[in-house]
């Protein structure tokens, strides 16, 4: 379980300090897939950076409960998998090296069973034949699948995804989402996915929160009954979609008042 209490994050420039997130509190249960929906510039990516350990919060606490033990979230004590917007594959490492990099960094030894599990992930994501290629030799969809494999091979306590499917065309995006769901259901890591796509939020999130443009405030929250269902053809789904769109729109209108 992830617990965030009154977290504030700011960016400092030469002349001023920009407060991006102010007093954000969140709780994400173990095995939950939380979608953070919000317009550009609302602080979604800053939240991911903070949880990934690349940005430090100014105030507040971020804790993780694992095996009944509560500890400050830390990339060294906790396994944090990440799929950034452009997937973040290192161009100088082969697909295999990229996939195993988090394990190598954590100096984790692999037994036979671990190796078999990794092979299963390669096969489930259909990248077993691409292992010796470099990222530049892959298509957009293949890059996406490699990034998903890399994050699941780590068996993360927390999985962070920052608009992971935004760079793909419509067909590849659909395939990548389905593959992601398939493998997610097997391992069920606690997941935070940020996106600005309502469709993606309804497809991949067990819970959805809509973030405002005023320093990362939460303006709406819902448990998603359409989790795992791709484009259900019913009226309630369309009404929910419309509702989320309204919430996002109101947000953008509020932005001026916020500034």
């Amino acid at each position, binding site marked *: 379980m992830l617990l965030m209490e009154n977290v504030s994050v700011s960016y400092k420039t030469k002349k001023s300090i920009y407060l991006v997130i102010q007093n954000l509190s969140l709780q994400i249960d173990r095995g939950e897939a939380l979608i953070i929906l919000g317009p550009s510039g609302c602080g979604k990516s800053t939240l991911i*950076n903070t949880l*990934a*350990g*690349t940005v430090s919060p100014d105030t507040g606490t971020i804790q993780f409960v694992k095996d009944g033990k509560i500890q400050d979230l*830390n*990339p*060294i004590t906790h396994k*944090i*998998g*990440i799929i*950034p*917007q*452009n*997937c*973040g594959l*290192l*161009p*100088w*490492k082969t697909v295999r090296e990229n996939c195993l*990099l*988090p394990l190598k*960094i*954590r100096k984790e030894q692999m037994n036979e069973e671990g190796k078999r599990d990794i092979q299963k992930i390669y096969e489930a994501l259909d990248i077993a034949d691409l292992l010796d290629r*470099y*990222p*530049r030799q892959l298509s957009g969809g293949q890059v996406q699948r490699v990034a998903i494999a*890399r994050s699941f091979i*780590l068996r993360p306590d927390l999985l*962070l995804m920052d608009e992971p499917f935004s760079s793909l065309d419509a067909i590849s995006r659909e395939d990548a989402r389905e593959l992601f769901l398939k493998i997610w259901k097997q391992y069920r890591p606690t997941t935070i996915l940020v996106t600005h796509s309502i469709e993606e939020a309804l497809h991949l999130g067990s819970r959805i929160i809509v973030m405002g443009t005023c320093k990362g405030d939460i303006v709406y929250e819902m448990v998603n009954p359409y989790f795992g269902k791709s484009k259900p053809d019913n009226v309630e789904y369309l009404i929910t979609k419309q509702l989320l769109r309204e919430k996002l729109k109101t947000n953008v209108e509020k932005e001026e008042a916020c500034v």
Partner: protein
Amino acid sequence: MYKILNKCRVFLQGFLLLNLVWLIASLLLNINVIPSPFAVYKDLGSLFTNKIIIHILYSLRRIALGLVLSLAVGIPTGIIMAYSEKANRILYPLIYFSYPIPKTALLPIAMLLWGMRDGSKIAIIFLIIVFQVIVSVRDSVLNINASMYQVVTSAGASKSQIIRHVTLPAILPELLTSIRVSLGTAVSILFFVEAYGTKYGMGYYIIDAWSRINYIDMYAGILVISVIGFALFVLVDYAAEKICKWC
């Protein structure tokens, strides 16, 4: 390998064409200063009696020391400038100002500071290469996509692991390109830096033959230094192809 073979083919074409121009010029002008290429090639055997290998080794040693020193200073400086805004603020104006200064103009100062022997020669070669190294390393590090840091940091990487897995591989292609360019300049500078305080080196060989009005030997020396320059160029290209397989 194909790329290197292609470069050798281009070199051979250029080499033959240049020899043709040289032959025509020697026939038309018919003066001692431009001997026939046939006369020079016929005399190439004398290079070995003149211990050309020792001259080549001396020159290569000076270039290698200058290069190693440049890398040892340039790589950390470039990385520090990229990661520390403060360091960049202090060092960038210095680099920006010093980069275009013709380094041969600093030869008298180098002579006064490090003497007439190898010290000043290596210092000039170092000055030619080091600025290119610093600038290319700094720019390469600045161009690293933030998502790569995200991936390794979230996995719990230490600073040294980030340098090893992200920073160093990211600078390699640009670094090798800048080494290739600056090595060419370093070879051409041999003519100046080996004109004093030594009896060995390719530059000395050419100047010595010139002063003895032995134009055949002088041309042979020029041919050898050109081949050395090209060999270094190809060697760095080959290394880049082998090391930077992902490019």
